[in-house]
């Protein structure tokens, strides 16, 4: 791969989301990318933990994903949901027990043979800057095995990015910001 070109401007630093985003960033149906009544709706959920294994009650998560056919959609309406338009983006504040829930669709593969994943961003009080990661769907073993990112990780690291499919069809993935089973967080080219 070619080296990413140098930036012309220096990026502005990030800062923690702080403790008081609760009246500002969450909004009605923020975590409902589709209605719970949608025939293909899937619950994506888990708990966010700190380095002591304690649940973090003041984290904010966002997901961004393709639709069921693997199309990246570009549609307005994420902040004012009409209940019909799939915009691919959602946000949720965790509850007092650090638990998050999104109602969404299983993303399709964006290209044939690619492992489908959901992009996730984590913000929290005490977290200086946002963290990025991926939530992979567990089903396509062949695609997961040939995924370039997953292939560059150890077995233990890989596990932190692949969701579990629960009996009711839900996807479950816990996030650990620090510690033994720390989630693999990502950096991308052109950050500085």
């Amino acid at each position, binding site marked *: 791969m070619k080296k990413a070109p140098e930036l012309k401007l220096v990026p502005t*630093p990030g800062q923690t989301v702080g403790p008081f985003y609760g009246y*500002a960033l969450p909004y009605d149906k923020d975590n409902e990318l589709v209605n719970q009544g949608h025939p293909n709706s899937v619950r994506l959920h888990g708990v966010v933990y700190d380095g002591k294994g304690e649940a973090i009650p003041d984290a904010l998560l966002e997901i961004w994903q393709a639709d069921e056919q693997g199309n990246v959609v570009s549609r307005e309406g*994420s902040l004012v949901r009409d209940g019909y338009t799939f915009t691919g983006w959602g946000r949720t504040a965790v509850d007092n027990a650090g638990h998050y829930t999104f109602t969404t669709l299983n993303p399709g593969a964006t290209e044939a043979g690619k492992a489908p994943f959901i*992009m996730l961003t984590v913000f929290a009080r005490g977290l*200086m800057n946002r963290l990025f990661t991926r939530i992979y769907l567990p089903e396509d073993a062949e695609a997961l095995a040939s995924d370039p990112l997953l292939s560059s990780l150890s077995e233990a690291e890989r596990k932190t990015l692949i969701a579990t499919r629960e009996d009711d069809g839900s996807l479950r993935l816990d996030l650990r910001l620090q510690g033994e089973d720390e989630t693999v967080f990502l950096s991308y080219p052109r950050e500085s």
Partner: protein
Amino acid sequence: MSANTNALDPAASAATQEDISAEISSIHEDYRQQLLAGKKAETQPRMDFAPYRSSLLRHPTKNLHHADPETIELHSPAFGQRDVHALESDLTIQHNGEPIGERIVVSGRVLDGDGRPVAGQLVEIWQANAAGRYVHKRDQHPAPIDPNFTGVGRAITGANGEYSFTTIKPAPYPWKNHHNAWRPAHIHFSLFGTDFTQRMITQMYFPGDPLFALDPIYQSIADPDARDRLVATYDHSITSHEWATGYNWDIVLTGSNRTWMEEEEAEH
């Protein structure tokens, strides 16, 4: 219960400002030595910054893993008129009366790391009121809530990446990081780019704030030039006659990956 209870933040300590300031100085001195030894300047806050006690258990200890961005990561959600009403950028007209405080206009542009304007994207802000109080149930600071000020705004950037908010200048407020800890006045900004990898949340500060040197959140950015990038500039051309004083603050996101990766793709 005393006024200095740490109940809101289990990670808070009884450290003094002198303790915290000494820790900050020591980290900054190490950074200065690194720069002298030829290391690249840092542009972002340290994830592991002990003077901000809540960061201790909430930062990853492993290096971030490099990923080559793929499809979804090379795009961003779309926001527009359907999502945000034009009046949401004026935080002074959300209630029946005028909020108390110093009316200000904060304007600027959102650019990417290549200097291109980020047009038609969402900017969200939130802040304390003129007394240093947030409309948030966990904010127990005994300063008055202003019934005419919520402190939340949204805007969609224009064709040149421009945004403008009319609001009230927020005040500093105390927090529980250490004894007698005060945050410099700031406005929280939430930003989207053209790739979701450019997503960021940050804080804008006001020029000359005497609390800068004491604040472990602001000082978590070890590089002094990088810290300056969070400080707005007083701009008399934004100030309007008998109405509001004006500040300018431009925001630079990281670089887009879509353009160069698509170009590379096309070469194959």
